[in-house]
């Protein structure tokens, strides 16, 4: 069974981004970039499926700028066997990424695609579900456990208030939640090995996909700032403030 894992290059989760003064976007010049944390969980899960001999090959794919090669090398250092970069400098929105991934799926014919549930830059939480719809495949979003047996996958999902388990006919789409696994640390020997693994590059044009954005960003602004409050000396003072000043208890 082949597993496809899409990965996205995003601003590192430790970076607090700044809005540009002309409100055209956030300033990502010279900030640290990393693999989207949910995608790292996806690569780890696919790698574990391979280590359990459930998967035979793990293919990482990324859509975006040339530097996304670094993200793909990280995926291969975790355990992906090879990688595909759909290279473009154009802005990509989730629907476009889903269409690009569908074109890759049509070529690669994986039985399972594992994606992160959302990217921590645009926080859209759309691509996996959109890909499932375009392929007419079943989906299990926000997975905390994946078991593959025969031609089906049983997936436990995090829902509001608890957990839900669904069974999917393969081929299928799964998106990862935080508790699915804890990704391994990438070791130096594996980073060296990853450099020798194959990385193919294609483009939206070669895949015959119109990746033009549908949403126009009119502006990006700072969120309303919260003014710093006061420190209270003890619990009695806190209770007094909550009762008489904030009037919330």
């Amino acid at each position: 069974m082949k597993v496809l894992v899409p990965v996205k290059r995003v601003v590192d989760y430790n970076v607090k981004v700044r809005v540009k003064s002309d409100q055209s976007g956030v300033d990502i010049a010279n900030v640290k970039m990393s693999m989207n944390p949910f995608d790292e969980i996806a690569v780890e899960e696919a790698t574990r499926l391979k280590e359990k001999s459930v998967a035979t090959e793990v293919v990482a794919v990324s859509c975006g700028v040339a530097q996304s090669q670094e993200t793909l090398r990280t995926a291969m250092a975790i355990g992906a066997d090879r990688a595909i970069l759909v290279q473009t400098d154009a802005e990509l929105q989730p629907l476009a990424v889903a269409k690009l991934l569908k074109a890759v799926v049509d070529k690669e014919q994986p039985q399972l695609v594992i994606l992160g549930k959302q990217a921590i830059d645009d926080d859209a939480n759309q691509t996996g579900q959109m890909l499932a719809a375009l392929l007419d495949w079943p989906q299990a979003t926000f997975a905390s456990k994946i078991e593959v047996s025969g031609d089906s996958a049983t997936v436990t999902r995090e829902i509001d208030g608890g957990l839900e388990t669904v069974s999917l006919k393969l081929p299928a789409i799964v998106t990862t939640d935080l508790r699915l696994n804890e990704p391994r640390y990438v070791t130096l020997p594996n980073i060296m090995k990853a450099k020798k693994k194959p990385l193919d590059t294609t483009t939206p044009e070669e895949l015959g996909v119109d990746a033009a954005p549908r949403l126009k960003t009119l502006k990006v602004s700072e969120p309303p700032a919260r003014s710093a409050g006061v420190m209270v000396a003890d619990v009695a003072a806190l209770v007094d403030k909550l009762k008489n000043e904030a009037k919330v208890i």
Partner: protein
Amino acid sequence: MSILVIAEHDKAQLRGATLNAVAAAQKIGGDVHVLVAGQGVQAIADQAAKLAGVAKVLLADGPALAEGLAENVAAQVLAVAQGYGHIVFAATAEGKNVAPRVAAKLDVAQVSDIIAVDSPDTFQRPIYAGNAIATVQSADAVKVLTVRTTAFDPVAAEGGQASVEAVDAVADSGLSSFVGREVAKSDRPELAGATVVVSGGRGMGSAENFKLLEPLADKLGAALGASRAAVDAGYAPNDWQVGQTGKIVAPQLYIAIGISGAIQHLAGMKDSKVIVAINKDAEAPIFGVADYGLVGDLFQAVPELTNSL
């Protein structure tokens, strides 16, 4: 053009998130219709018909819709979507699961997690864990939206007199099947809609210590929440996580106990009306957003606070 809101329910009752989604739909302007999909959900359709400002309720009742499987619910929405200019979901686990499937099938963009309606085609939404707000305009014929429930005050649950119209329920896709569901039973209010939230972090130290928050939550009628660190450490269940990728809350009062305040956590609670932080580290970032901060040992402060309420 009319607006279609997809109702959420737990088979017995309409969920509160639907009231927020209807409120957002009303800001767009136009007749608001509500789709209730499920099995044996006439009573829920009747509840939806009473919501203030709802013009019509569509009721799709059939076995394929019983467990809310994304494939079937999306197909049901698409089956009735003709003629609607906006399709609106609450940005809950359910809404987020289904909405993008609908958008992709319609070949339109989805605008996720809107916090304001500027015009029928222009919306505001948080990006980068709420560190920036994007104003986006959709040129697509149909706008598929998910609504951040805390950003829109719910409509009144009573007062409307909408008609209920039965529509054909879709057949099962055959792609997926429901296996089971474990939902924690609790007398406490639902985290996302609670007026008071008491949240614990890594500073709680253990799952055993986390129970220290229960008497406080009981006194305040509060929901319990947690930081990611506390959930990862196994102190609290997954669905208590407040933050960028967990629950987004905006209660009247948010009490953060032993939570340092990573940006991902702040993203989930900084729109709360009043924030209280109790932490032994005076440098903790949580104090930067707290209205009232108390530096001290939570194991003393929490029981003392509980006893003084």
